[in-house]
């Protein structure tokens, strides 16, 4: 994003003031950014400063997982950081390269001090005296965060110094090894990591990287404890999460919801499908054809199926979908899902870092084949080519870009199979040619901009 910041209205009314209800991370009302004084008035001083072991144990008991998309257990990373030698560099990841997500920048704008609290806790767990806040380039947001960091320095509340580092506006800028590369002054492109564990900076120093929303949850768990955290969410996936919703009427909003909330509740979907094939689901914002869960590395689900599912990995993963970073888009009935997916596939191909042969050869070909299939009376050899290239690209890159892109594209071919049949006969059920899923405007053709 350049300088536009869309601020979301809080979508859920709090059940009660204080930490009992939702939202937890966002303000209970309004969108006024919290300064340090307001932040401390709402949440009080940071607890567990001085006892990083207790924090890791509390995070483990809370069952907190990373909110950047991979849902990795936070306590395991904190434990690894505590044992790593030398002390890891600590980074809060607010790159948010996913064009359909705006929850991280909304959180950073509205509740910067929760994130900065969490960053301090992570730095302490890693025994680091410095920390980095890596945030997508946006002048207003950076100015606001610099102000928040200065406020804290003036109040003397922090042990670790925080440096603000801009992230390039690329889909993969927030991939963990790309972030680490950027912090060592190299381009923000992913690295090949044959060994699992914390990523390493060039000279051998490990890094502890946590998504900014994860850090904000950590700051609340430190204050209110694991049992409180578990008041929201499910037994296996506790807590709340920020979601970026794209509603069929065209509205986008960021909302904080308990994990496991029904997609029907989240999107205002009716649970009874309509339409000739029962594949269109009415909703408050208009009829819905399909639901994209997990963003552009996520998966499409038929609307009627989505309406019966919760936003939880336990239910979504068996269907090839995942919560990811909380992007949920309800495709209006008037849009062609193949055309939408083809547009995004082209973007994903351009966002390959161009390092791995199967990715930089496969994704552009896959995207071109999908674009062909999204047109009238496609040559059916394109379908076979696409399947073959998808098999060659998935699982063969240094990062998960080819895997995630292929998952997203394959889900479209599954969910929009009937639509593909229409296209074979020269028809299309789309009545509205305007793009629905957001992509960055004015994307530069240059692949040089990774820093």
């Amino acid at each position, binding site marked *: 994003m350049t300088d536009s910041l869309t601020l979301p209205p809080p979508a859920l009314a709090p059940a009660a003031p204080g930490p009992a209800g939702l939202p937890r991370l966002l303000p209970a009302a309004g969108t006024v950014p919290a300064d340090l004084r307001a932040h401390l008035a709402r949440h009080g001083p940071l607890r567990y400063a001085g006892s990083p072991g207790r924090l890791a144990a509390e995070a483990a008991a809370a069952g907190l997982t990373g909110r950047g998309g991979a849902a990795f257990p936070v306590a395991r990373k904190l434990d690894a950081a505590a044992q790593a030698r030398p002390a890891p560099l600590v980074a809060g990841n607010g790159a948010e390269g996913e064009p359909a997500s705006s929850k991280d920048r909304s959180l950073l704008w509205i509740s910067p001090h929760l994130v900065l609290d969490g960053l301090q806790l992570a730095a302490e767990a890693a025994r680091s005296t410095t920390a980095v806040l890596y945030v997508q380039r946006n002048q207003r947001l950076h100015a606001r965060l610099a102000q928040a960091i200065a406020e804290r320095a003036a109040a003397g509340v922090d042990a670790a110094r925080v440096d603000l580092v801009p992230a390039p506006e690329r889909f993969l800028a927030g991939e963990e090894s790309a972030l680490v590369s950027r912090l060592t002054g190299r381009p923000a492109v992913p690295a*090949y990591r*044959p060994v699992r564990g914390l990523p390493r900076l060039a000279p051998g120093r490990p890094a502890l990287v946590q998504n900014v929303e994860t850090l904000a949850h950590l700051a609340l768990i430190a204050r209110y404890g694991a049992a409180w955290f578990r008041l929201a969410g499910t037994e296996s996936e506790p807590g709340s999460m920020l979601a970026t919703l794209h509603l069929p009427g065209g509205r986008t909003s960021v909302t904080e919801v308990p994990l496991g909330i029904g997609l029907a509740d989240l999107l205002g979907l009716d649970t009874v499908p309509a339409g000739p094939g029962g594949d269109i689901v009415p909703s408050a914002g208009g009829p819905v054809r399909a639901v994209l869960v997990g963003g552009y590395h996520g998966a499409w689900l038929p609307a009627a199926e989505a309406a019966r599912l919760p936003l939880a990995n336990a239910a979504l993963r068996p269907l090839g979908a995942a919560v990811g970073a909380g992007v949920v888009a309800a495709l209006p009935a008037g849009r062609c899902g193949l055309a939408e997916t083809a547009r995004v596939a082209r973007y994903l191909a351009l966002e390959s870092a161009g390092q*791995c042969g*199967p990715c930089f050869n496969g994704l552009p070909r896959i995207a071109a084949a999908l674009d062909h299939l999204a047109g009238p009376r496609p040559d059916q050899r394109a379908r076979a080519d696409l399947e073959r290239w998808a098999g060659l690209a998935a699982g063969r890159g240094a990062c998960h870009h080819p895997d995630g892109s292929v998952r997203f594209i394959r889900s479209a071919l599954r969910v929009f199979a009937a639509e593909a049949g229409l296209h074979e006969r020269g028809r299309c059920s789309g009545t509205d040619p305007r793009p629905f899923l957001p992509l960055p405007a004015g994307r530069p053709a240059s692949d040089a901009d990774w820093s």
Partner: protein
Amino acid sequence: MEERLRVNPVACAGHGACAELLPELITLDEWGYPIAADQPVPRGLRREARRAVSNCPALALALARVA
């Protein structure tokens, strides 16, 4: 303990030397990039596997010990 072939996809430039030296375990995709067989290196091919590793012009092929 067994050994498996690992390709570093960032370093690999698709020279194809590995597939020439070890066709039993490595094939090339249609763009010239290696696909290593998803199986441990059989005892009888260990010497050839080591040769393929040391002859990769991009140093992109490795033998990983898997317990």
